[in-house]
């Protein structure tokens, strides 16, 4: 079942002077199956964040359509989008984006309180999530008392508490040390095994190697997609690195 589909999505940023246009996305089309873990790779400035922001309805597309569960979110009104984001999308940021004024537990519970869910039930689900993410002991702490990796796991719990259709992650391991970042990626894999659809954006081949499929984004276009298939992680990683080096040498020639 297709859970997410992009059809020829364009995004053009117009600078304040109205003269300079940046074509951040230039006709992106792709699909995501339910329960799939997809990584989008690209250099910095290639339009990865722009793509995720469009998926999360933070911004409007210039052209094209985005379907989540067969619903075109481009056509939605502002309020509808916010509601949709709250209920159906979980988002993890590179900078964790936890609220300093709330404890870890309150941070996680915030989305269900905002959408007025039954708190008792959610607390049970929270226990389960915390068990998966290994943060049972951290719930009473405040963000400033947590390490980066712990903060990011809390942020993932917050993204998942409303059981979203899809989890979007913008370089979730970007601000973490290599050990915490490996742990985090393992966790994402574990979540995927439990049936969670995940779309992750990254520029690190290692992070991408945890996914089942990697799409390469360059200058706002998807230039190639590769599947891990039956490969183990190491071979998949090598294939990704190979892809990148081929890409780079091609750039060298063109230059």
């Amino acid at each position, binding site marked *: 079942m297709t859970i997410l589909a992009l059809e020829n999505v364009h995004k053009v940023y117009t600078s304040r002077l109205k003269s300079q246009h940046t074509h951040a996305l230039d006709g992106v089309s792709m699909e995501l199956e339910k329960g799939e873990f997809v990584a989008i790779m690209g250099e910095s400035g290639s339009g990865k964040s722009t793509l995720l922001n469009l998926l999360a309805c933070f911004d409007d597309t210039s052209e094209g359509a985005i379907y989540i569960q067969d619903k075109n979110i481009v056509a939605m009104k*502002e309020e509808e989008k*916010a509601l949709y*984001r709250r209920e159906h*999308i979980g988002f993890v940021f590179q900078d964790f984006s936890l609220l*300093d*004024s709330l404890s870890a537990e309150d941070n996680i519970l*915030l989305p269900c*309180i905002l959408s007025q869910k039954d708190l008792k039930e959610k607390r049970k689900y929270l226990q389960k999530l915390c068990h998966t993410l290994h943060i049972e002991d951290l719930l009473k702490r405040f*963000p400033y008392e947590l390490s980066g990796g712990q903060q990011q796991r809390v942020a993932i719990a917050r993204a998942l508490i409303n059981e979203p259709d899809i989890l979007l992650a913008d370089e979730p391991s970007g601000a973490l040390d290599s050990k915490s970042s490996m742990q985090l990626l393992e966790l994402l894999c574990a979540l995927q095994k439990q049936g969670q659809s995940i779309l992750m954006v990254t520029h690190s081949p290692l992070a991408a190697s945890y996914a089942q499929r990697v799409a390469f984004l360059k200058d706002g276009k998807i230039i190639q997609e590769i599947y891990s298939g039956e490969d183990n992680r190491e071979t998949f990683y090598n294939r990704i690195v190979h892809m990148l080096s081929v890409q780079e040498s091609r750039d060298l020639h063109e230059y």
Partner: protein
Amino acid sequence: MNIKYYFTLAWSDIRNMKDIYLPYGGMMSMCFCFLYIIAYLGTHGNFYSLTKGSIMTLDLLTCGGVILCVLIFILCWTFSLTIRRQISTRQGLYRVLGFSRKNLLLLNACEMIIISVLALIGGMIFCIVFGKLLIMSAERFARQTLIQGITVDMRLMLWISLFMLSVGLVLLVRDSVYIVTHNPLTMLRKEKMQEQPKAKKLTTIFGIVFLGVGYGISLSVNDIGDDLEKIVFAILLVIFGTYCVFKGTGIMLLKLLQRNEKLYYHKKHMITLSNLLFRLRSYAVSMASITILLTMLILTASMCISLYTGVEDSVKQRFPEYKFIINGINDDQQLQQIVKKHHLAIQKEVQIPVVHGAMQVVVRNEELWIGKVNETIKENDSVPALTAITLSGYQNATNTQVHLKKDEVLLLNRTSHPIHTMNIRMENDDHTISIMKKKVRSSDVDFEVFPTDLVLIVPDQQAVAYLDYLFGEYVHDDPGYSTTLSMYRSMNFIGSEDNQKALAADLNANEEITIEDYYTVLDEMMSAYGSFLFLGILFSILFIFSIFMILYYRMHEDLREHEHEYSILYRIGLTKRELSLESARENRWLILAPPILAILHCLMAYPAFHLFASLFGFGKNGFSFMLMGEGCLVVLFVFIVYMLLLQMLIKKKIMTRKV
């Protein structure tokens, strides 16, 4: 590095953050200007030659100058702290980028020098632009010329500049200590912003106790004069209590609310409560300052207004029917002449023969003692003033018919003690003492010609005898001795106000005549309180300005610091509308708490305020209460408007901004 380089860098820093430096410099300039005006008035006015209110004016100006100096120091300290908070990140960045401590200290000093010099120049410009205006308004309040023209007094300017510079120096030392003791990384980080504030039990308890005791004292004040120290103590308690309440009690209360799960885990409460808790830590001090400034503003302003409007009322009360009370003209012809000279005509007149004007007597155990009583005064006696007049004068003045027996007198008693008998203590020629008793009848008509607490009305044929009785010695019993009693004439004139004033001035100038008249008294009272009013207005401006500055800086911080938080909430799935509602909920508390507490302070200060107002005779009829109440309402209104404006601004910002 070249010193010129530091100045260039400092100047560009100041220019980059002109929206926080400009109000600060403006405030310093204004302080400079006010201080100059007050000092100029104090040193150049020849107050001893003033016709009215000479001593009080100088005292008030000196007192006001000292208070202003203290206030300026406090204001500069507070606002430079706020600025410190905003620039320490930038300075931390400089350190990280390779500035040494010494470099940064130099840069900071350069910044301070530039700001001070600019503020001084601004202050001088203010003096030139507003100086004349302010002095003219001071003269208007004082109803007379205070000084002959205003010029630039270089020495005074120098002194005041020195004062301001020394304030700047203290601030510089404080900042330098801050820079030396903080490492670049802590400067770079928003200091401890993320940590949860702790509820301090001691502060909480102090807050409540201080406020309670302060209120209690204020409510129990009976007499401004006697309880002055108590009042000052109460004021200090309330000031400290206010700080403690915001720093301790507020946080404690929010924590208690947070502990209530049902209440806390609610869509509308969770973020609000936790954010308020966090914001209270950085805002507690400024909220408390706003509260105190507002309280002072309301009290000062309503005091000024009540003085201004009340003086006239209280003078009117003193002259309800007749505007002139003249003593010393017994010859009708002479009076007619003077009146004619000023193009006036007598409208109505009452003549009251007076035995003696105001003199002190003793009231003890519901008995009145006159005569040789000075040596008998004991501690619990009250010693009101008494005027003695004749019965015929009384009948004329009140249009009543009264018969007095030989051993009876009539008494108009305005004290709170009932009086039934009168004792006359006479010293005979052989120095023995004899005491006469008279029965006292109360007058049931009040007439205001004589303002003393007691007015004694005696039968006409005994008037001369009473001259002796009042002094307790037989002087006039010589049968050949005859006295004409002096005549008090209460009169009104027909004619223009200017002519009446001229008449009053003319009569006042005559040594043989004593006169009390509406115009002179009003003029004198107004001019006596003129300097008071003037200072009150200067202080009110300063209070308003500093409140405005606190709010301005807070708004500045608000708009910057909450951008991040709002963007997180937006990304979690709050709509922009919900976001602006959320910020409205938080701001409502933060903005409205100070004025509400200030109003509570004012209400608690009301008894003392009322006593003060009644010193001037207009504490009656709830007038002072009305004034203060109106002051409170105006303040509340202004804050609500401010809240709505801020809300609109934030909403616009939220609505238009992209992620």
